[in-house]
């Protein structure tokens, strides 16, 4: 009963968020009136130096590329260090992942620009490094959380290590891994805004333009767009996470 109501609420919230976001991206003029109240001296209320759709797509593209790369690498390393052969590398891998997270992304950009040039590339590097840790840690936690007896039974019945990983360990660890990916990508969506300082095309451009021109309407427009994007991705991945958990808590 309660679960059903919560589900309806979630679906309703998601629907409203999707609709709102679509209007903000496809028809930003719709918000001209309310935003105009925040401008002074006849500043434009809606960012018009580039199409919002193009900026949004580029922002999403950069985040998706960096997050997927982080997912693949963190997953691969997480699997490796939880195998008997790779266990000795766990402390090393953990140290590297931690470093990626503790090193401020803005500093990472500064380091990356001389190596990769301006544009999307340094942003990709920074987001990738920043996004590894939550996926890596959750992969390890998820795999280590699989009951040793379940794995022992699988091995004792003649399943090979590869098969146990694919059919038993990964499916059981999946909800935890998705949760890690969810944290990683949400953080990335926000962090990607700083990419605009080094010429990456994205929603950060609107915010930075607003800061430079002292235009609060721009800042608000860019900020809300980024926040909505993060909320939508969070809702979507939350849904996947619950799906992955399903068979065991039906």
């Amino acid at each position, binding site marked *: 009963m309660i679960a059903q109501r919560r589900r309806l609420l979630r679906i309703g919230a998601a629907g409203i968020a999707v609709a709102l976001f679509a209007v903000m991206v496809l028809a930003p003029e719709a918000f001209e009136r309310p935003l105009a109240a925040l401008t002074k001296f006849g500043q434009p209320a809606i960012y018009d130096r580039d199409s919002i759709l193009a900026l949004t797509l580029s922002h999403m593209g950069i985040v998706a590329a960096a997050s997927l790369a982080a997912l693949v690498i963190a997953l691969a390393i997480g699997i490796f260090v939880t195998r008997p052969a790779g266990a000795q590398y766990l402390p090393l891998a953990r140290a590297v992942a931690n470093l990626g997270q503790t090193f401020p992304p803005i500093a990472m950009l500064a380091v990356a620009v001389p190596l990769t040039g301006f544009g999307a590339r340094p942003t990709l590097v920074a987001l990738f490094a920043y996004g590894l840790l939550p996926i890596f840690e959750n992969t390890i936690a998820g795999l280590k959380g699989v009951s040793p007896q379940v794995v022992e*039974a699988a091995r004792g019945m003649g399943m090979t290590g590869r098969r146990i990983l694919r059919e038993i360990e990964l499916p059981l660890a999946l909800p935890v891994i998705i949760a890690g990916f969810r944290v990683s990508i949400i953080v990335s969506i926000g962090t990607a805004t700083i990419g605009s300082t080094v010429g990456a095309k994205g929603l950060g451009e609107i915010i930075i333009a607003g800061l430079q021109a002292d235009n609060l309407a721009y800042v608000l427009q860019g900020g809300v767009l980024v926040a909505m994007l993060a909320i939508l991705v969070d809702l979507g991945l939350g849904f996947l996470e619950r799906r992955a958990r399903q068979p065991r808590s039906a």
Partner: protein
Amino acid sequence: MITVEALTKTFGPVRAVDGISFELAEGEALALIGPSGCGKSTTLRMINRLIEPSAGRVLIDGVDTTSIPPATLRLRMGYAIQGIGLFPHRTVAQNIATVPRLLGWPRARIAARIEELLELFGLPPAVFARKYPHELSGGQQQRVGVARAMAGKPAVLLMDEPFGALDPITRTRLQDEFLAIRRRMGTTVLIVTHDMDEAFKLADRLAVMEKGRIVQLDTPEALLRHPASAFVESLVGSEDRGLKLLSLAGVTALMQPATGWTAEADGTFRKAGADASLAPLSASASLREAASRLVFAGVDELPVVDEAGAMVGAIAMERIIAFGGGGR
């Protein structure tokens, strides 16, 4: 079937298993029994190569197991463990299908096998096949665990305290069921347990282990009558040995022709000259049950009847007492 030769496992300075040898014949049930930490599980796990021996070898049908890839070997050996280890994300049917799938059986054969096993273990397929492990009681989960271990028709079933985590009533019921299934299927079983009653009940022979060695390998009766050491004696239970001995044999073993008994209309029997009539013993009763009934009724003889209620003989207290003779 399985030959174990001088099997040894050392973990650092610890000799967990110390030169163990035994044979397991086809159709036989052998129990490895001993206190916790004596090396039972390690022995079992060396047989299916979950642990590699430090020395010694294991043969299956005369073939050294080290010449068979571990995964292939394990497909021929069922494995059921105390923690059960059912796959929580798979249904009962999918769990049971694990080994048949690995063996590449055709779909229809797998489905038939699942059905057969669920019926055998008293879990109606229509109700249980599509349930997930968390929807089952402990006893049901354990049944599925054993059914899963038997699914691929293994040459031998290895069980490590399979009924360990259950309440006494459920455990006894599962032991009875398993015994019946084993008798019907003729399954070869190697079972690890620290529970002597379980070993007596399920196994034809017991290998009593102490500190990594087998100190006596014998039938339950021989263990009770002639324990090789004070340790074995304490393990088989010195107080109630006589009663345990009686529970190993059925009344039919000591039954004599019934003389002087007449049947009453209500299914009871009256001995000539006695004023009360007595309920008879079932021919499937153990000597222990017979002794209990004799004591409780305060008589020295009881009639024995078959399933149809027809008298097949009589059992006398003096013969039961003589059965235990020889102990000190």
